[in-house]
């Protein structure tokens, strides 16, 4: 684990990615603990639509709220939703993909058909469908993203699991009479950590993107809790008068996604034997 972090840090993209993620996590923690420059919900009616200054680092919005503090809480929301939904999707998807590959036969067919049905929907559409049923909100966003991403994890795990199943060391385990549980965990799962790690990071990037998109449409985290997408949406009408209200949320969203993408890329480079061969 520690070795992984240090090699990530040495990788140029990895370093940038880790720094960004670190900063965002910091912002999220501070936001949760209420350690923001101003109260994100407080209306400073006198200072409405002020440009960035010493008091209000990123300016204020139409209702006089401090943009920087709201951004910090917005980051908290995004990270929370992203991590929660990806965690659920990872666990569910890995179990389904692993068992599907291991049992094979009719179970594999059934599981994969069900996954195919879920994958038949463009991701945002599926999320919208779920939101249509349950109504918008933070919890719904988590559920929607988790449901959308589970089949992707299942697919990502199933492929390598199938080829691992054919490997000699799995055969060897069968000749010893090792239990299925042992084979699944020590032999298969341990060797799946590499592709999973890459996919988790990329999933986090995608989750951030989708969460921002959903809240942009007004279907994600509901006001008054700040969310990055909603802040961006609200800035549209005021674009010409108060461009800072648009630029900062936009950059924040982009940077967050970039951070995870860079880290995922770096992980892929480090863990993929083929890339290593290419460089050699």
């Amino acid at each position, binding site marked *: 684990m520690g070795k992984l972090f240090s090699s990530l840090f040495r990788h140029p*993209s990895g370093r940038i990615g880790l720094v960004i993620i670190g900063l965002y996590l910091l912002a999220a923690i501070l936001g949760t603990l209420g350690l923001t420059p101003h109260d994100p919900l407080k209306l400073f009616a006198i200072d409405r639509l002020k440009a960035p200054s010493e008091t209000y680092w990123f300016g204020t919005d139409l209702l006089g709220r401090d943009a920087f503090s709201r951004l910090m809480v917005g980051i908290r929301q995004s990270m929370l939703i992203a991590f929660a939904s990806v965690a659920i999707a990872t666990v569910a998807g890995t179990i389904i993909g692993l068992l599907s590959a291991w049992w094979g036969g009719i179970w594999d067919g059934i599981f994969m*058909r*069900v996954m*195919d*049905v*879920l*994958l*038949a*929907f*463009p*991701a*945002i*559409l599926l999320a*919208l*469908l*779920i*939101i*249509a*049923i349950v109504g918008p909100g933070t919890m719904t966003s988590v559920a929607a993203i988790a449901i959308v991403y589970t089949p992707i994890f299942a697919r990502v795990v199933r492929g390598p699991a199938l080829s691992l199943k054919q490997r000699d060391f799995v055969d060897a385990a069968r000749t010893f009479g090792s239990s299925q549980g042992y084979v699944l965990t020590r032999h298969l799962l341990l060797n799946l950590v590499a592709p999973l790690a890459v996919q988790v990071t990329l999933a986090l*990037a995608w989750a951030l*993107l989708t969460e*921002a*998109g959903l809240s*942009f*449409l*007004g*279907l994600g985290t509901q006001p008054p809790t700040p969310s990055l*997408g909603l802040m*961006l949406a609200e*800035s*549209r009408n005021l*674009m*010409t008068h108060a*461009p800072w209200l*648009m630029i900062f949320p*936009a950059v924040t*969203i*982009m940077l967050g*996604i*970039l951070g995870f*993408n*860079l880290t995922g*890329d770096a992980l892929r480079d480090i863990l993929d034997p*083929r890339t290593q*061969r*290419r460089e050699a």
Partner: protein
Amino acid sequence: MSYVAQRLLTFPLILLGVSILVFVAIRLVPGDAITAMLGTEAGLLTPAQREALSVYFGIDQPIWAQYLRWLTGLFQGDLGISSIYGKPVFTVILERFPLTLQLSLMSMVIALSVGVPLGVLAASRNERPSDLVVRVLAMLGQSTPNFVVGILIIYVLSVFFGFVPAMGTFTPLFVDPLASIGQLIFPAITLGFAFAASVTRISRSAMLDVLSDDYVRTARSKGATPMSVIWHHALPNALIPVVTLSGVEFGYLLGGAVIVEQIFALPGLGRLVLDAITQRDYALVQGTVLFIAFNFLVVNLLVDLTYVALDPRIRIGRR
């Protein structure tokens, strides 16, 4: 059983699964079914009217009977009536579909015609400055959500060019091709932007993999020119993963259309879904989601068939 036959057989199965999922999803909406179908007007009904409507809609039947009834209706093109528009859902969908289709296709064309050459170029100049520039740009592009791109485009256009892209109306392609394309060019760039970045990265990495394959070394040992090595020997092999991944990403385009149509106020299918959801028009939600999913599945099937055409190992088994 051949690859093609397998794909063709599972297609209707998945379609069936999709229809069941959508049907069940709509039935899960809290509240009673009549309100779901009629919206707020349901509050004006008398109990007698409610009863009559229950029978009419077949809500008193068991769920599987309702499903079968709905399914047969589907085959006849009956997707119910939209409460917002007061017209058959199918009609509304067909009115809005051409715009979304054109938008998606334009985005695809933009993304592929920019992405593939850039990716190939970057791979052939691996480790040199131009490669790095392309990689950085592609990474930035892929990390930019389409709504950010859209808003930025509108901002730049309005502030620096004093120009607002036409919104709200749409001239179909066959009426006036030039105007039609012109109206959709900025939304198409918005939608295709991240896709182009993605295609660039995939093309580059596929090319790099292929360029280190043994048969490329053989081509070089025969004295093939560098151009020939890239375009004649490597690219046909590298296209295979590009095509497969493009099919998957096309779903992203369809989903992204929802947001882009919202930003540019285009009367397309994506915006229709959104309106249907926010205004609780469940018949419309059901119909549009089903329609879009169907299209996506068809595109995936086409992509898989293209894959067969590209790779002789799938096309012809071992003799």
